């Protein structure tokens, strides 16, 4: 039984940001995901970001046990999960206390009044009840006896214990929000039917509570009007909502299928990269070999071994893990094997802020190895394009016989967004450099004239028996060589090989003004925030002199980089670190003056702070 309710003309909105918060056990991730999926199927563009506590089972009601899920839905393109919140749903005092800051003044907060007990208020360090002391005066507060109403709705359902009843109150809040935003409950009821196939009482209970919330909102006089967000204009096709880490894993699956190579992952658990391991281990049906190693070093080493033996080899990690992998990455560079290293960046240094986002591993990716050790460095920019850049990392590694570091970050890795599903048939070709038929005068370091990539002779192939290793090689035979001139030749050759990857990557595209006063420069996971800030300043505030360029290819950079810089009077480099990309740009394009916007708080940029700073430069 779903509801297709007919309501008075709803208020039209372009976009809305909703945050569901509650105790870790309150089911906020499920509530948020359901709302996201329903909205996406309705045709909205969506962007989400979950916020879990670091503790696995934090004490109930505590401030650090609050779990949240933010979703931004829009009838226009949505590129971020949003900064400030239009609707806050707080299932307990701790959730309200830790999230009220994000709610726009005058906007709505729905609270479960039943949860505002003396005990819960104390746990949240409220001296007085915020529902009574006037501290919420600037907001539109909707107090709902959600626990009581949930119990009431379920009084006739047999076979439910108290815990099950309490746990379904999140569906009451979801029902209310569905009504407020003119969404059908159909998708979620379908979900119950599938999820609880063998437990009909749970299907009934959850459906009842969801509908009860929906009807409650409908009849509640406190909500004077409901909102609607029309479908967004999106490229036609088949879509699904995908998380960044899943998209990364799937991009690798696609590359494996396209290249005809078996996929090998050597990995060690680390936040926030572990979900890629979790995803890839599921896919044994595609022949994926996912090896959980004893440490980060064994993770990359097993991948190097698998690459030597002819697999498409991957290792996944986050900042501290990349530090541990440094020496082995140098070996992979030295023996010139294809290898994809994925670093889902988090707040550093050291253990840093494991669950927060940052872009501070760029210099580590570029230079964090002994000796002169260049590798290809690329970065994904949205949850959905993690698919493309994971694929691209594999393509470049195989075609150029080099390690490729793909940088994503906690923000896009855990965020989700619509992904227009890409069939492997439509993906670019991936050539690899495997050799099969032995010819005289073959040497392991024989190079392709155009790319300088060597050939890939894998064990099991007769005639090509050879040894590689970390010692410097003779530039022709590949035998160990200590000759001074040879070392210099090899050092230059390895650098030139990476530079030549430029011929195999697309040029940069400038968005908004193609020339003018200010060029906003970003890289990696900040695409969404930067794009929406430049869009807003251009479309809503009438500026037509700001361009935006975003780098996904960092080493090497696209060929037209300098040409683009030359078209603008000022350049501002925006990144979530103290200026690492700006440092690289200054070193490579010294004739331009690069200004910087930096943020190192473990948080993404906010729209407002960007717009304010852009305006100061105009």
């Amino acid at each position, binding site marked *: 039984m779903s509801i297709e309710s007919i309501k008075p003309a709803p208020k039209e909105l372009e976009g809305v940001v909703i945050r569901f918060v509650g105790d870790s056990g309150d089911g906020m991730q499920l509530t948020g995901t359901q709302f996201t999926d329903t909205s996406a199927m309705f045709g909205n563009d969506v962007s989400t970001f979950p916020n879990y506590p670091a503790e696995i089972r934090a004490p109930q009601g505590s401030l650090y046990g609050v779990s949240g899920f933010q979703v931004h839905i829009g009838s226009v393109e949505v590129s971020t999960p949003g900064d400030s919140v239009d609707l806050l749903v707080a299932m307990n005092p701790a959730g309200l206390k830790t999230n009220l800051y994000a709610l726009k003044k005058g906007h709505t907060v729905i609270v479960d009044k039943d949860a505002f007990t003396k005990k819960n208020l104390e746990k949240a360090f409220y001296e007085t009840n915020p529902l009574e002391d006037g501290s919420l005066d600037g907001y539109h507060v909707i107090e709902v006896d959600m626990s009581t109403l949930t119990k009431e709705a379920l009084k006739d359902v047999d076979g439910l214990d108290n815990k099950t009843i309490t746990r379904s109150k999140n569906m009451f809040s979801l029902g209310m929000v569905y009504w407020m935003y003119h969404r059908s409950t159909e998708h979620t009821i379908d979900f119950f039917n599938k999820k609880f196939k063998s437990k009909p009482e749970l299907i009934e209970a959850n459906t009842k509570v969801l509908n009860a919330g929906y009807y409650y909102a409908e009849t509640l006089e406190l909500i004077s009007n409901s909102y609607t967000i029309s479908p967004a204009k999106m490229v036609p096709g088949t879509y699904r909502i995908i998380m960044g880490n899943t998209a990364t894993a799937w991009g690798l699956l696609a590359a494996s299928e396209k290249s005809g190579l078996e996929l090998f992952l050597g990995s060690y658990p680390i936040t926030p990269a572990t979900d890629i391991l979790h995803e890839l281990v599921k896919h044994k049906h595609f022949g994926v070999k996912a090896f959980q190693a*004893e440490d980060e070093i064994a993770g990359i080493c097993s991948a190097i071994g698998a*690459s030597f033996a002819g697999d498409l080899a991957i290792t996944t990690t986050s900042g501290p893990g990349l530090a541990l992998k440094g020496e082995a990455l140098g070996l992979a560079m030295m023996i010139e094997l294809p290898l994809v290293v994925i670093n889902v960046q988090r707040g550093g240094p050291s253990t840093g802020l494991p669950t927060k986002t940052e872009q501070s591993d760029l210099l580590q990716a570029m230079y964090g190895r002994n000796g002169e050790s260049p590798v290809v460095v690329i970065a994904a920019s949205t949850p959905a394009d993690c698919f493309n850049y994971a694929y691209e990392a594999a393509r470049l590694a195989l075609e150029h016989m080099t390690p490729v570091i793909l940088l994503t970050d906690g923000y896009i890795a855990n965020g989700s967004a619509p992904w227009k599903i890409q069939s492997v048939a439509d993906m670019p070709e991936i050539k690899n450099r495997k050799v099969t038929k032995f010819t005289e005068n073959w040497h392991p370091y024989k190079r392709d004239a155009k790319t300088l990539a060597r050939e890939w002779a894998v064990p099991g192939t007769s005639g090509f028996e050879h*040894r590689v290793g970390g010692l410097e090689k003779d530039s022709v035979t590949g035998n160990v060589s200590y000759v001074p001139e040879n070392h210099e030749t090899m050092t230059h050759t390895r650098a030139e090989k990476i530079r030549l990857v430029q011929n195999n990557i697309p040029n940069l595209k400038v968005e908004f003004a193609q020339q003018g006063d200010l060029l906003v420069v970003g890289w990696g996971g900040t695409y969404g925030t930067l794009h929406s800030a430049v869009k807003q300043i251009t479309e809503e505030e009438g500026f037509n002199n700001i361009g935006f360029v975003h780098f996904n290819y960092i080493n090497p950079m696209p060929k037209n980089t300098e040409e683009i810089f030359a078209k603008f009077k000022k350049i501002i480099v925006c990144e979530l670190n103290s200026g690492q990309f700006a440092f690289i740009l200054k070193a490579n394009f010294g004739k331009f003056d690069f200004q910087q916007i930096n943020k190192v708080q473990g948080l993404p940029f906010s729209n407002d702070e960007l717009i304010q700073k852009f305006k100061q430069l105009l």
Partner: protein
Amino acid sequence: MEATAVKKYTYKDFVSDQEVRWCPGCDDYVILNSMQKALPEMGVEKENVVFVSGIGCSSRFPYYMNTYGVHSIHGRAPGIATGVKLANPDLSVWIITGDGDATAIGGNHFIHVLRRNINLNIVLFNNEIYGLTKGQFSPTSVVGQKTKSSPYGNTQPPFSPGELALGANARFYARIGGNNPKAMTQIFIEAHRFKGTSLIEVLQNCVIFNDGCYTDVTDKEVKDDKQIYLEHGKPMIFGKNAEKGLVLRGLKLEVVTIGENGITEKDILVHDAKEKDPTLHQMLIRLAYPIATGIVRAFDDVTLEEREDELTKKIKAGSKYKKTDDLFFSGETYEVK
């Protein structure tokens, strides 16, 4: 890799064109020659053989073998070899390592590769010293040993690679003197045939930095009296005249003389290398006199690749996902028109 289908190889087929650069008189030459002699007997095509080493004197080994090889980084050969073997289980994979490489910097990888029981072989050159860095004590150096980094004598007690290995659930462990090429060659062949991780510890003399460290057990004059060469199914008898044997008294192995105190050959323990319980194997490894050599343990067990392969086949057979499209378009998708 059926033995019958394999080309006939000789020792020379496995010699690479690289000049061997170990110190004259080093036992490493013996190990290299034994391996080059053992390989033609194994029935494996040379393109299917991969040697992976770490760092140290021993780790130059792959350069001298005319097979596939990786001279990797310090202590990490087990990781690389694991990747090679999982990527292509048909390969015969050999890890070449030393006491510093395997038990110091690579200790973590060493225990885990043994635990997993991947079908590969490890040759550990134990000379109780760091040779390539010119003479520092290692985790197998004895207390009191004077080295460049312990000029007044080593104060760090050692461990025994064999004990460590069995603690890590090693299924195959053999020990052999570095001056015994005949037995070594045979052990290499047995290790290759054994399905699972095989560890061969070679008591290898370093002529420069730790010369003579095994003289009292490996020298020709004393070796028969000081070593017991264990063979599966045979009584544990040793001595120049095969007059001594091992018996179990309480929780200790004891050396007895056959013919004395009413001891006959029937009283002597019979070596069972295939026993699952490693207790007696551990006791043999711990013996100070005689030093146990030969194949101490060879317990047949399921390998990691076998487990993985079985699981993969099962999942493949039962899966609705044949191509990535099946996965990408499955579940909750929606159309935008």
